[in-house]
């Protein structure tokens, strides 16, 4: 049998293909993005990016109703957006199998919170599986689809950043194609008007009871017996750390996060002296076990905040006296080190926008995307960032409440289509005087440059229909719509001022460049040492291509600027901000005719 080293995300895609999935939908979001990108490599599966997670899940539900095995994928906060769909799908059930993947992000490597989506399984009354490595990730997709069909329910799979992005070995198998199940009209099942929904609720409760029964004997809730002084219940990535740090302990590994096998847990607990729960984030298993009347320790020992790591598990266990200290506990004294946070790329067009907003000293209600990096020094020009699409609503609220300063909303193109549209409609409807700047770099940059309705490029690489953002704003009734190049700093500054004076909703589509997608067609810029006096103005745009040179200015004794020709892509912002004309533009690179 063939084996391959795959990330959890690649394995989930492989699992979808092997299990006969025919339709897959998603909206990108770390750490889930590569799942659909890998699904798209299989021609047998129709796959697409939706404009947001709710649309992705509605679409997936429709496909499952119509009789095809289907997968929907999103990051943890994406399931908040899609939760409406999850709840009704739990009531209606499916027809062909439906698996929903939620990729959680303990430690917030690239998210705004670390919510624990196991809670959604209990909340929505849908079963959830939780793989702990790539092989399980692959196998659990097939299992989830079979469960979905057998129990007429959507099935959730929860991964975390660690299981999604870590690579381990998987065994490759062939694809098993499934006959399309016929769709048969059945309003009492598929139409959730109150009269029918009331009839569905008991069906759902019965389903959970049956699934709990299944969980008792299923092959993915397993016990590895060892020393019985300590018994550990664990799941997901945390299981691997538990195994690593407690090589001899007995471990009950729950491959199914919800519902839990109560009898199995009781039997296990009865046989060990001390029962510990090692789980990432919330005390989800722990509270359930305690509710069953079993003495258990979990979050009193192991942290509930942040991602677990082998050393965090060990340190917590040592601190609690569960483990003896080992020899690893040395720390070299490296002293204070400069941090290295992510920064806007050299040449990124978002820098033009935030440089301008900083100069205008307005309050900035920003949003989620690469442009969120505008909050960091030296640009430091964002006041609020919450969740995707929040910028416009928060900006409106600040206006209603009589904010002392002018404010603007900043939103990316992908985010605009994700959840900016209905907020903008609200602004027009109530004639709320807000200025919305759409930073349009024609790509979903933050998550690795996926297409979106504004770029027109589809997941399968086709050029679909590109939706014109300015036209959308006009169609929604915005009277003041401006389109400009963010690189033209003066024009952008004047336009923002003009829009603010209008006293009505205004939209500025600021076209910016994503240097991953297109280029400025210029050679690197050069600093003329004779003219530079080390004034530091160009340092303050935060460009990663600009460094302090070794040469000091005689008068000021400050280091002069130096532009790294390898990193500079020739955007010219430093040239625009330099007050001494010490920077020379790179030559234009002629664009080759296609």
């Amino acid at each position: 049998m063939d084996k391959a080293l795959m990330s959890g995300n690649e394995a989930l895609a492989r699992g979808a293909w092997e299990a006969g999935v025919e339709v897959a939908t998603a909206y990108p979001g770390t750490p889930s993005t590569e799942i659909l990108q890998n699904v798209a490599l299989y021609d047998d599966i129709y796959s697409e990016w939706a404009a947001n997670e709710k649309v992705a899940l509605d679409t997936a539900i429709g496909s499952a109703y119509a009789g095809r095995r289907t997968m929907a994928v999103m990051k943890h906060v994406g399931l908040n957006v899609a939760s409406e769909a999850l709840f009704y799908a739990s009531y209606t059930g499916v027809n062909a199998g439906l698996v929903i993947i939620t990729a959680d992000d303990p430690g917030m490597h690239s998210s705004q919170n670390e919510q624990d989506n196991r809670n959604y399984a209990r909340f929505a009354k849908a079963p959830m599986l939780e793989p702990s490595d790539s092989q399980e990730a692959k196998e659990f997709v097939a299992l989830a689809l079979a469960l979905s069909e057998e129990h007429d329910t959507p099935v959730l799979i929860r991964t975390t950043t660690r299981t999604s992005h870590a690579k381990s070995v998987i065994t490759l198998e062939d694809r098993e194609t499934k006959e399309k199940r016929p769709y048969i009209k059945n309003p009492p099942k598929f139409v959730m008007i109150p009269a029918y929904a009331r009839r569905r609720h008991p069906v759902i409760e019965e389903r959970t009871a049956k699934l709990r029964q299944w969980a008792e004997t299923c092959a993915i809730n397993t016990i590895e017996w060892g020393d019985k002084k300590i018994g550990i219940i664990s799941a997901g990535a945390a299981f691997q750390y538990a195994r690593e740090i407690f090589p001899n302990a007995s471990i009950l590994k729950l491959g199914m996060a919800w519902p839990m096998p109560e009898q199995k847990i009781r039997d296990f607990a009865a046989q060990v002296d001390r029962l510990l729960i090692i789980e990432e984030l919330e005390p989800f298993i722990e509270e359930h076990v305690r509710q069953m009347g079993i003495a258990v320790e979990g979050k009193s020992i192991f942290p509930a905040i942040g991602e677990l790591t082998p050393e965090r598990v060990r340190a917590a266990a040592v601190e609690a006296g569960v483990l003896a200290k080992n020899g690893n506990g040395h720390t070299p004294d490296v002293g204070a080190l400069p941090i290295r946070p992510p920064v806007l790329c050299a040449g990124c067009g978002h820098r033009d926008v935030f440089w301008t907003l900083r100069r205008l000293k307005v309050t900035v209600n920003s949003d989620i995307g690469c442009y969120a990096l505008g909050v960091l020094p030296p640009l430091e020009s964002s006041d609020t960032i919450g969740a995707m699409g929040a910028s416009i609503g928060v900006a409106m609220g600040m206006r209603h409440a009589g904010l002392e300063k002018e404010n603007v909303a900043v939103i990316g193109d992908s985010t605009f289509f994700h959840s900016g549209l209905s907020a903008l409609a609200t602004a027009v409807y109530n004639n709320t005087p807000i200025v919305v700047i759409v930073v349009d770099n024609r790509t979903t940059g933050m998550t690795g440059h996926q297409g979106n309705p504004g770029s027109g490029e589809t997941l399968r690489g086709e050029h679909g229909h590109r939706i014109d953002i300015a036209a959308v704003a006009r169609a929604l009734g915005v009277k003041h719509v401006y389109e400009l190049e963010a690189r033209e700093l003066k024009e952008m500054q004047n336009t923002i001022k003009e829009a603010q004076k209008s006293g009505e909703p205004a939209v500025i589509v600021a076209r910016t460049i994503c240097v991953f997608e297109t280029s400025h067609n210029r050679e690197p810029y050069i600093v003329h040492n004779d003219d530079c006096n080390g004034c530091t103005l160009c340092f303050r745009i935060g460009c990663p291509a600009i460094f302090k040179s070794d040469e000091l200015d005689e008068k000021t004794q400050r280091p002069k600027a130096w532009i790294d020709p390898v990193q500079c892509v020739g955007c010219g912002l430093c040239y625009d901000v330099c007050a001494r004309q010490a920077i020379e533009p790179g030559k234009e690179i002629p664009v080759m005719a296609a």
Partner: protein
Amino acid sequence: MTNKKANFLLAGVGGQGTLLASDIVAEVGLRQGLEAKKSEVHCMSQRGGAVTSHVRWGEKVASPLCEKGTVDFFVAQEMLEAMRWLEYLRPGGTVILSQQELPPTGTVFGSAVYPDKERIFTTIGQIAGKLLALDAVGVAESLGNRRTANSVLLGALSAELAEDEQPWLEVIMEKVPARHKEVNRKAFLAGREGAWELGD
């Protein structure tokens, strides 16, 4: 195969190719019949941020992350990053260091200070059993492509592991673009041979 079990840490800066290099190390482990796991973080860290990747070889590997203080081979692609992740090194472990300095933007617009070379070498020396400080970028540049610096480092690593070059070259050839195969092969061999001379 002399090392049935090994923990590796690769650390660099977004854009330096840390992830590809660690993919190669993991794959080499697999080719030798070992279990291999690898873990990294994508996304935010790639926009010029700090990037690390853990690789573990063994008969059986549970955690995809190395525990602090257990890394046998630490490949640092940048001087400051070598300091940042040094606590992962096992006392007596080996550090393969590219002497490249990439000052983060905070040292340019702010008051943060890049640690000096002397301090970096002494600190590493206090804990490492062996430090190989290579001018990996210089070697790569002399071969005509500075982006092959990672192959130089991997060459040095393979020599430190006292291993056959074959599986390494095989995997590198599979993973790099066709037009860069030859220069990467040269870079790997340069790192492999040079490693001994540059020793501690």
